């Protein structure tokens, strides 16, 4: 049996344990990578699945409704009973969203189809029933059958109105207010007409918001306590017990999309991570743009131009050792040199009128990218140097023998051949930089920066802004949010996303390298 496996794995018999040991190590590494991804994907993606709501009746006749999260056996060696954790929501009613219940005390469980989960802007989720609908404070007379379709229809109206009001505010009100505040008008007539325009736009926003606040839901918990919830503050209503598998899948897809495309809410404990994805990507791209020319030029100097003496060897060893400096040290360096040193000076020269509030003299996208560029510089230098060293001298001599100068040889023969090696360096740099969090905390990452650093306002790319980062987001959600049970799945989901983002960035660079290699023929033979 084993012999047959051995043949299939191309491990020859009679070579002892060596090949098996090596193959075992490979399998173990692969297994760990797969386990990591499965864990992240499982815990992270399941979070968005609309789980069914259980209506639990305890042995003393008490009711409550919630999602069953997990069971926990009694502590080892102690007497006790297994407990089950429920997510019950309704923080406004009982001040607590989690409930541990002794499993033995559960008398019965049911899954009535009319239970709803309402995602709200305040107090978290509501779990219970929809008891009615109000329009301008008056109850609407609705039959049981009409109630649910009407609720969905009214909710869609609110979503439309919310989009309209957001668009109005972003595209009309804010530019006008900014123009007025900065004094950009031609004459006093112009100014007055601008002010009037702004007033009219504000009035329109108010009107839309007024329309949004028309309807309210009457919600009733399973204990019979009622809450009036304005529809304005509702993001989503689901009836998971009444949904088919396909409906659930669609709801899951919509939630994943919202997680990817929206900004965070409730102090990062809910909502999406779009600003963090964008910030991570942008920061890594800026870093690559900064590190590549420096690293390549340094490697070219070390390998092609500098005399190969003791000093060059020393510098080379130094560069290699820089790669081992802990990243937080680079963060401290970035804070001292980039933020306070260069940033402070820039502020004094160009942004004097805004002082004492700093523009560049505080952490921001630019300084974070440069700090990470410094951190990854040795990686790029080493990879490029190795690529240059692999180019046969025959190629250089061939060019020289045709009458090329050393500079022409470098530019026309050596550098094009070293491009794949440079891209390898950039790939390694991206892999190192995208996962780095510690130095960023010193030089510009923010807990909450819902405005992404790119927008329609001149100069479009705002290098001085603080930005969000997936790595820091994991730390923030995991350690600084009040509700650890709610944060955990978000941590897994964000971690999975970080891995995916790094994968995408790396694949882009690898694709580029492959493309370059194909263009230059079989370069590295």
């Amino acid at each position: 049996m084993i012999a047959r496996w051995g043949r299939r794995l191309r491990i020859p018999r009679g070579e002892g344990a060596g090949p098996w040991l090596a193959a075992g190590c490979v399998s173990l590494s692969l297994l760990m990578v797969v386990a990591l991804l499965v864990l992240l994907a499982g815990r992270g993606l399941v979070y968005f699945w609309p789980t069914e709501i259980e209506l639990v009746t305890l042995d003393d006749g008490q009711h409550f409704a919630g999602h069953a999260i997990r069971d926990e056996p009694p502590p080892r060696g102690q007497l006790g009973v297994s407990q089950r954790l429920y997510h019950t929501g309704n923080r406004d009613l009982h001040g607590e969203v989690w409930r541990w219940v002794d499993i033995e005390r559960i008398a019965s469980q049911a899954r009535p189809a009319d239970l709803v989960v309402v995602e709200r802007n305040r107090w978290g989720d509501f779990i219970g029933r929809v008891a009615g609908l109000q329009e301008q404070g008056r109850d609407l007379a609705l039959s049981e059958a009409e109630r649910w379709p009407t609720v969905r229809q009214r909710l869609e109206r609110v979503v439309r109105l919310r989009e309209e009001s957001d668009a109005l505010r972003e595209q009309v009100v804010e530019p006008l207010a900014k123009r007025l505040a900065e004094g950009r008008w031609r004459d006093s007539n112009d100014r007055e007409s601008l002010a009037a325009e702004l007033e009219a736009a504000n009035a329109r926003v108010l009107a839309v918001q007024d329309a949004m606040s028309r309807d309210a839901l009457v919600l009733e918990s399973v204990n019979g306590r009622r809450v009036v919830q304005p529809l304005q503050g509702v993001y989503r209503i689901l009836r998971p017990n009444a949904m088919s598998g396909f409906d659930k899948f669609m709801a899951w897809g919509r939630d994943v999309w919202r997680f990817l495309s929206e900004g965070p809410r409730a102090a990062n404990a809910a909502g999406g991570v779009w600003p963090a994805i964008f910030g991570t990507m942008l920061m890594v791209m800026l870093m690559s743009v900064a590190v590549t020319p420096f690293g390549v030029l340094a490697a070219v100097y070390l390998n092609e131009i500098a005399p190969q003496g003791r000093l060059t060897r020393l510098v080379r060893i130094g560069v290699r050792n820089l790669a081992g400096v802990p990243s937080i040290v680079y963060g401290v360096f970035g804070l001292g040199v980039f933020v306070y040193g260069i940033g402070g000076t820039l502020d004094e020269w160009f942004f004097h009128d805004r002082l004492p509030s700093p523009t560049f003299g505080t952490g921001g996208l630019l300084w974070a990218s440069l700090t990470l560029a410094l951190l990854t510089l040795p990686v790029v230098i080493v990879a490029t140097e190795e690529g240059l060293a692999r180019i046969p001298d025959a190629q250089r001599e061939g060019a020289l023998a045709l009458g090329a100068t050393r500079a022409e040889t470098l530019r026309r023969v050596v550098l094009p051949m070293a491009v794949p090696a440079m891209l390898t360096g950039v790939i390694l740099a991206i892999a190192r930089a995208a996962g780095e969090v510690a130095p960023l905390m010193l030089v510009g990452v923010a807990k909450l920066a819902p405005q992404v650093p790119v927008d329609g306002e001149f100069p479009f790319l705002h290098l001085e802004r603080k930005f969000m980062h997936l790595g820091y987001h994991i730390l923030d959600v995991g350690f600084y949010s009040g509700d650890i049970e709610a944060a955990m799945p978000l941590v897994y989901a964000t971690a999975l996303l970080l891995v995916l983002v790094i994968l995408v960035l790396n694949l882009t660079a690898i694709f580029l390298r492959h493309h370059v290699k194909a263009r230059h023929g079989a370069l590295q033979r």
Partner: protein
Amino acid sequence: MPVFDSVTDPASPASAVSTAAVIEIPASASCFEIEGLSLAYGDTPALENLTLRVPRQRVTAFIGPSGCGKTTLLRALNRLHDLNDEVRRQGHIHLEGQEIHAPEVEVAELRRRVGMVFQTPNPFPMSIYENVAFGLRLQAPLKKRQRDEMIEWALRSAALWDEVKDRLHDSAWSLSGGQQQRLVIARTLAVEPEVLLLDEPASALDPISTLKIEELIRSLKSRLTLILVTHNMQQAARVSDYTAFLHAGELVEYAATDALFTNPRLAQTENYITGRMV
């Protein structure tokens, strides 16, 4: 065909190297004049007090055992040793009467005039066309039609045109070894050198490709001076007009090829060409 046959008497006290048998080539017919050339890598001497003249528009072969300094001598002729900081040189090399180490000589221009083909084919990782155009692009810009004509001429001169005319834009690395070596020769010819240095150009090739390269060398003699380093005695006998035998950094015998192979003056030469010397 050899045209000069006056040979210094090995016993003559007037000879620069008392033990060597060196043919005298008149200065007017020589392309390179090498005078008292010594060269060392750090403390290791590679060439010692070499004096010889290389005739114009002839094929001159350098032969000798490995490590005798023949490749070192070849590379000295287009100053490829400049790249190595460790190399120390004494003596003079004149190309058409001009000292090649003189400060007013531009080394890039010198290397254009003195082209070189290496042991292993080293085409650049570009298309066939771009390989031949490489040297041209370094010179004054040409119109595309003129450049195309030059490239066709160079490829025809290297007897490669018929094999590659339909695939000029394929990668040069898709050619066979022999084709690659002829491409490298074409690339060198395109910049119209006066001298072509060939460092064992056929040692990495099969017999058919070797034959083609040898034919090529013979056909180029009418317009260029060729200097060939080879380990292959038959090759030297087949293609060269003059042959210099080097040993341990010194010139032992330099004569018309026919004379050297049929009637060597020194026992050392005879031993080597008949394969008796280790």
